[in-house]
């Protein structure tokens, strides 16, 4: 299991635990100081004991979008599929509202073909995400890109399923 998915999962559990509305009202200070690259916006935690008895919490659409940190791509493509529009819009607004926040866009490719060309594909994907975030209000100084090509797969099998998981851009707040 890839460590990032594990951390995203932990972050989602934390989000679920801290209550929908509180997030939009309190600025997510934890984000700016979060030392780990995997920090999620809004990932301020409330110890489980204080939450008390189980309680059903409805997640607002904004929060769900911000908790999503990976955009997937078609083979040899860098076009952003419409299903990621809402998510990227939320991240763009978040960056606009929090000008001190920095986001690194990590582009990746599947293992097929040559390695340096795949570095190019990863970079192209990261740049495509960058352009959308700029349009959505992020400032260019908040964004950096890096491409790992096929060097850091999220899934390790040589099949369509793994390849689809590896053609991605990861949003890494720091």
């Amino acid at each position, binding site marked *: 299991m890839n460590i990032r998915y594990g951390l995203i999962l932990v972050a989602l559990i934390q989000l679920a635990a801290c209550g929908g509305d509180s997030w939009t009202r309190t600025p997510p200070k934890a984000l700016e100081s979060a030392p780990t690259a995997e920090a999620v916006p809004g990932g301020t935690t409330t110890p489980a004991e204080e939450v008390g008895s189980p309680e059903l919490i409805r997640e607002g659409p904004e929060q769900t979008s911000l908790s999503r940190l990976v955009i997937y791509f078609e083979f040899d493509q860098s076009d952003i599929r419409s299903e990621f529009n809402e998510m990227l819009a939320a991240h763009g607004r978040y960056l606009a509202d929090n000008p001190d926040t920095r986001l690194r866009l990590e582009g990746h490719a599947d293992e097929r*073909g*040559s*390695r340096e*060309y795949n*570095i190019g594909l990863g*970079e192209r994907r990261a740049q495509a995400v*960058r352009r959308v975030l700029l349009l959505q209000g992020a400032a260019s100084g908040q964004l950096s890109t*890096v491409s790992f090509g096929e060097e850091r797969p999220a899934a390790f099998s040589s099949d369509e399923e793994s390849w689809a998981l590896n053609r991605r851009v990861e949003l890494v707040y720091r």
Partner: protein
Amino acid sequence: MKQQVGWLGVIWVLAVIAAPVDAQLRIEISKGVDRPVPIAVVPFGWQAPTTAPFDIAGLINQDLVSSGRFAPLEQRDLVSRPTTLAEVEFGDWRLLDVDLLVIGRLTQTDQDRFTINFQLLDILRGQPLLSFRLESSGGGLRRAAHQISDMIFEQLTGIRGVFGTRIAYVSVEREGEVMRHRLVVADADGYNARIVFDSPEPIMSPAWSPDGRKLAYVSFEGQRSAVIVQTLRSGAQQTVSSRAGINGAPAFSPDGRKLALTLSRDEGNLDIYVLSLANQVLTRLTTSPAIDTEAAWSPDGQEIYFTSDRSGGPQIYRVGANGGTRPRRVTFEGSYNARPRVSPSGEELAVVFNDRGNYRIAVVDLTTSVTRILTDGRLDESPSYAPNGATLIYATRNRGEGVLSAVSTDGRIKQRIASLAGEVREPVWAPFRPF
């Protein structure tokens, strides 16, 4: 971001001292020529009462077998064990259906000095084809034996031998959630493997300097790419490019003075540049908004071949190495031609070619544009020519693991190169050693 540009300067760091690796490679022939040449290599003579410090004949045998072109006689089938020409009974050998005989002897002349005498004999004519003496230290005997193999190979095939050359490759091992990336230099037969750089971050695109003393490669230390040039003997690392964006695909010019590389700079568009190593002057060769990467120099240093997807998919283009010329497309067959490597003769390119959904190694004749597919894997990549141009080493997958293979450029011989530990990739064959 801006201070990264300041990094451009030269930074010297002492790299990991070259450490021996257990992860040796082992070469097996998976396909040889139809009629390999029978040859008998007799164990070399050794006078001292102790056992010989090195089995020279054994290594010559192994080299000749691994080439896929020779069928050495088993030791038990040797009719006699001559070590000098005078001891050879040619009549006996003629009965064995073997045309060639290698004999020799090893003598200790001093504390750590050895003399090897060897002869390659034409059994039919009863005459020596080669007759030489080599001087060596004890530690140099392995290399001396490879040198003998190289001489025999060249005498019999007309092709310069590469048994005494080296390769570099990247090995990757997963240790829990951490990936260990290692840049390894080994003899061409996989022995004497040494880790020259070790990182939890990816290591990519090793490239030899033409004198075989340095390796350029891409590191991702600190979560961003940089092109490093490392001197092998001292381990000293020089960061030659750590500009904003991508720093990738280094390739030394044939004179060793320049490095072609791929940069994306701030705008995120990959282009080919040439960096003059003496004065850090950067010349931009391409300006297309497409991906331009994977530069490879022509042997005369005048042109650079590279991968570009300016026409849609990746294809190979050629551009003048001094800048100011328009790139011309050189591959037209198939939807995917990438990562060119120019043969030592300059007459053909080895590429990664998409063959009906499979990524395979192909050779493109630069005069006729004819493409020949040499391999049959599904995910073959990173072809690299042996310095004699007769063999390509490349990365492939076997049962989900990254392994190395080699194929002769005429497609007749295939070698599997087994790694005893971890995944191996990005093999690059070193140039001939200067004598």
